[in-house]
């Protein structure tokens, strides 16, 4: 019997994010013969539901209600369980995002299904995920008949526009909300650094830089480049070595500079997802098996405390174009 696969879509600030379209590709590999059904929740989503049905060719269940405008774990879980339980799905797929990992475990308990999070690859009924900050991989297979899966963003390509018949949209009105959890609002971050967004070159610090003092070394390296900025992994900000406005990654900023120099960054997916769009990536790390080397174009296995001074020296320690000191003879 062909498996029934359901995708829980995200709808953020008026659009369907790419992560949801990646789920369609993932579901296609999971169950090649039968297209998945997409469940979309929100307040006024008839338009996006129709658009999704056209783009993906998947049937859509559009769950609409006043209380579904902003994501709330408890309200969404109750709504989804009411819909999914009678359908007895084999697979329920969510992106591994702030919504996906928040929602998936509770759904799995309600559906009496296994829960496998952070899936990066699939082979049959076996799902591959990372452990130890990407140092190892492990294959996990559910032994239950059904499973809730969260898939790491960027692991699968977003689906291409479907050329076959448009999917059918079914609308479900839903008025209830959680009696014990209410999402009040979404706030913009107080930590934003436009310098990072505008930078052409970012020199970024990970926990592997070892101590706060080495941040100065990175700042010196950054001054070699015009329009440069200093970035950081989450853990460096947590340690107080750099302020959160420097943070790059899932809960920080997403950047795509011309050059990204990752210093002492292990390459955990939470960081990589925020910088993998960089045009050229250089990684400097003492650990040759650090997973940052999987995304870097140029890999340097060195201790940055000795390597960065050499790099500055070899570059001739020239001031960058545009930041040259006054020439002799200037007033």
């Amino acid at each position: 019997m062909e498996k029934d696969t359901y995708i829980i879509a995200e709808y953020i600030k008026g659009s369907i994010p790419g992560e949801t379209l990646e789920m369609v590709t993932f579901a296609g590999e999971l169950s090649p013969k039968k297209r998945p059904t997409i469940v979309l929740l929100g307040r006024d989503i008839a338009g996006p539901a129709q658009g999704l049905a056209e783009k993906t060719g998947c049937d859509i269940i559009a769950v609409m209600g006043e209380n579904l405008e902003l994501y709330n774990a408890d309200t969404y879980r109750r709504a989804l369980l009411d819909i999914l339980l009678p359908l007895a799905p084999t697979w329920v797929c969510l992106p591994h995002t702030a919504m996906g990992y928040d929602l998936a475990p509770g759904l799995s308990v309600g559906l009496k299904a296994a829960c496998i999070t952070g899936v990066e690859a699939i082979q049959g009924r076996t799902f591959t995920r990372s452990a130890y900050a990407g140092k190892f991989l492990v294959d996990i297979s559910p032994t239950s008949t059904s499973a809730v899966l969260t898939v790491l963003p960027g692991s699968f390509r977003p689906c291409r526009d479907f050329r076959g018949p448009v999917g059918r949209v079914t609308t479900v009105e839903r008025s209830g909300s959680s009696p014990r959890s209410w999402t009040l609002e979404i706030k913009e971050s107080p930590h934003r650094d436009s310098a990072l967004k505008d930078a052409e070159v970012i020199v970024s610090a990970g926990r592997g830089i070892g101590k706060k003092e080495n941040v100065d070394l990175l700042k010196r390296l950054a001054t070699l480049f015009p329009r440069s900025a200093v970035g950081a992994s989450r853990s460096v900000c947590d340690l107080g070595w750099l302020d959160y406005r420097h943070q790059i990654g899932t809960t920080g900023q997403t950047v795509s500079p011309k050059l990204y120099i990752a210093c002492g960054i292990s390459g955990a997916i939470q960081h990589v997802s925020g910088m993998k769009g960089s045009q050229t990536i250089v990684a400097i790390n003492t650990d040759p098996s650090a997973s940052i080397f999987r995304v870097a174009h140029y890999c340097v296995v060195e201790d940055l405390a000795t390597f960065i001074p050499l790099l500055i020296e070899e570059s001739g320690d020239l001031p960058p174009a545009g930041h040259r000191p006054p020439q002799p003879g200037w007033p």
Partner: protein
Amino acid sequence: MKILVCVKQVPDSGETLSIDASSGWIDYGRSTVFRMNRYDEFALEEALLIRESLPGTVVHALSVGLDRVGSTIRRALEMGADHGIHIRDGRESYVSPFSVASLIASCARTRGYDLILAGVMAEDDMACQVGQLVAALLDLPCATSVIREDFRPGGSEILVEREIEGGCRQEILLKTPAVLTIQPGINAPRYPSLSHVLRARSQPQEIIESRDLGIPEQQEIAGRLRAPDLTSQGIFLEGSSREKARALVGILHEKALLLQR
């Protein structure tokens, strides 16, 4: 206020770990140093801060695992937890988040906690599941990636902010009892004071055998750990440190990323 903090013991360094050929899992040799999962340190610190602001609060720390887990519970006591609970479980390799959460839920069910805290994830498995599963099993509301929390007067409601994508924050009001998973950076975890270290040395830990709580059947099986394919598309620079530096400067010049005068 009665708070339970779930703490996990993890191996100290990701860099020195290797895979045991026979078990297919991490080779925990004699030299492996274990410590508290860093994410859980933030959860414990948050509980201690709540206790400082709400007198009469009691903080329990709980961990699931082998005998060695006792040292991580002692660390929690050293940081200032009032009571340590060790759910002793003999499984060394893959233990599913569901099975850990079931043990925690079964232990916590009758103890009347107002708040259950855990780190947002563990450094080793990175599953982001146990807190949410405990909440679902106990039928409690839950918020993950919590970066700020404030009790409303009376203590029956708690206002939290959770971090979501794009640097935004979601503000949620929850009724207690509730489960929160704590995002790193919410606070600065303290170092144990000498007096707490001395006290923790003689402080007994409550030990519960996992079989007495009933171990639920795991719903998934894990294969052997393996190293990822390191066939990166990247180029490893070779030679001495200086040769590598020279080569990198050359590449950056060539790509017009580093300008020469």
